[in-house]
C-alpha cells in the first residue's frame, strides 16, 4: 500500500527523470544536427535594398530566340538584375593542378570569366564563376541559387557592347559529379554558364558539397553607336 506521500514522491522523482531525459535528448539532437532551422542565408536588409542598386532588365529581349554570336571583346562586368548583382569581371585561368582558378575572397564583389573558353557573346559556352560567400560574409553570387528561368544576365564588354543572356535553367549538382562536359563543352550557339557553390558546407573539408550552375543563352546583343 502506497501512501499519498509516497505517490507524490514517486511522481516528483519520475518527473525529474523525465525532464532530465528530455534535456539530454534535446542536447543529443542538437549535437547530431537534427534540430535547428535553416539560417537566414542573405541579410534581409540586403534584400530590401537590392532594387535600389540593381540595373533594370532590358525591355524587349526575347526569351526563347538565340541571337547570333557577337564579335570577341574582353568582358568587364556582369549584371543580374533579378538578384541585384553588379560586379566587375576578372580573367581566370588554370592553377597548377589544372583546375579553374577562383576569384579572390577580397573584395567579395568580383566574379571571374574563364579565359580558356569562349568569351561571353561568342559561340560556345562561356563560363563565369563567383563566390557564394567568403569566410566572413556573403559574396557576389550569394543569391545565384534564386535566379529563375527567363531572368536576364547582362555582360558588359570592353568595346562597350552588352551581351544580354536569358536563363534557361538552374541546376544544383554535387561537386563529386560536376558536369564538366555540360558546363565547358562545345555549343553551337552563344551560351553562358554561371557557377558558384551551394548545398551543405563540409566544415572538415572547408568546402560546400554542391555547385549551383545557371545555364543561359545569348538573347540580344547590344552595340554602342559608333
Amino acid at each position, binding site marked *: 500500500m502506497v501512501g499519498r*506521500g509516497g505517490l507524490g514522491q514517486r511522481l516528483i*522523482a519520475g*518527473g*525529474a527523470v523525465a*525532464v*532530465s531525459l528530455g534535456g539530454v535528448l*534535446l542536447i543529443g539532437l*542538437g549535437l547530431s544536427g537534427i534540430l*535547428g*532551422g*535553416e539560417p*537566414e542565408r542573405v*541579410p534581409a536588409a*540586403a534584400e530590401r*535594398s537590392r532594387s*535600389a*542598386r*540593381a*540595373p533594370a532588365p532590358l*525591355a524587349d529581349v526575347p526569351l526563347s530566340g538565340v541571337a547570333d554570336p557577337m564579335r570577341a571583346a*574582353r568582358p*568587364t562586368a556582369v549584371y543580374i*538584375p533579378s538578384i*541585384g548583382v*553588379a*560586379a*566587375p569581371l576578372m580573367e581566370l585561368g588554370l592553377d597548377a593542378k*589544372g*583546375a*579553374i582558378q*577562383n576569384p579572390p575572397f577580397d*573584395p*567579395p*564583389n568580383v566574379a571571374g570569366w574563364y579565359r580558356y*573558353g*569562349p568569351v561571353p557573346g561568342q559561340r*560556345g559556352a562561356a563560363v563565369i*564563376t563567383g563566390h*557564394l*560567400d*567568403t*569566410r*566572413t*560574409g*556573403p*559574396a557576389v553570387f*550569394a543569391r545565384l541559387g534564386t535566379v529563375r528561368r527567363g531572368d536576364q544576365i*547582362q555582360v558588359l564588354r570592353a568595346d*562597350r557592347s552588352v551581351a544580354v543572356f536569358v536563363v534557361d535553367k538552374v541546376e544544383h549538382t554535387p561537386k563529386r559529379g560536376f558536369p*564538366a*562536359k555540360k558546363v*565547358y*563543352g562545345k555549343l553551337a550557339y552563344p551560351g553562358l554558364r554561371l*557557377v*558558384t557553390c551551394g548545398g551543405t*558546407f563540409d566544415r572538415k573539408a572547408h568546402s*560546400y558539397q554542391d*555547385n549551383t550552375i545557371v545555364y543561359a543563352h545569348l538573347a540580344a546583343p*547590344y552595340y*554602342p553607336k559608333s
Partner: protein
Amino acid sequence: MARVRRLAAAGAVTAFVVAGVSLAAGLGPASASTTASTMAHDDPLVPGSVSTCLLPLPLLCDEQPGDSWSGGTPAPHDSWSNAPIPDDSWSDAPKPQESWPGPEKSTHPWRPAGEREHKVPKGHPETGGGALAEHEPVWPFAVGGAALLAGAGLAGVAVRRRRDDARRDGSVDPVG
C-alpha cells in the same frame, strides 16, 4: 549509510546544476554568430548590403558626383533599361575597368583564346568560404540545459521529501 546517500544526492544535484548552467551559458556567443546583423556587413563590396551606390559605373548609380556625363547622353540616374537603346551613345561613359579591380595590366594586347587553346578544367570551382553555411543550432542546448536544471530541482525536492518522510517514520538515524 544515510550520509552516503545524502552525499550521492548532493553530488548528483551539483552535477546537474553545473551541466545546466554551463550549457545555458553557451547561448550568448553562439547565437550571435547567426544573427542577420552579423551577416549584413556594411561592406561596400557586398552586393545589396548597403543602400548607397558604390560601384563606379554611372549606369547603375543614382548619384555620381564629379561625373563627366554630358548632354545628349543618358543622365546618371538613368537605369540600364534606357541605356542600350540603339540611338543612345555610351561613348561618354567612363570605362568601368578604370576604377574596378580588373585584370592585370599587360603589355600585350588582349585577345581571346582560340579554339585550339580551349581547355576543360579539372574538377569543379571552389567558390565558397562558409560564412553562409548553417550554424549549429543553439536552442536545443539551451532548452536541454534548462530541462536538466529543472530535473535537478525536481530530484532535489524528491530527495528532500523522502528524507523528511523517513525522518517522520523514524527510519533515519538522527545522528546521520
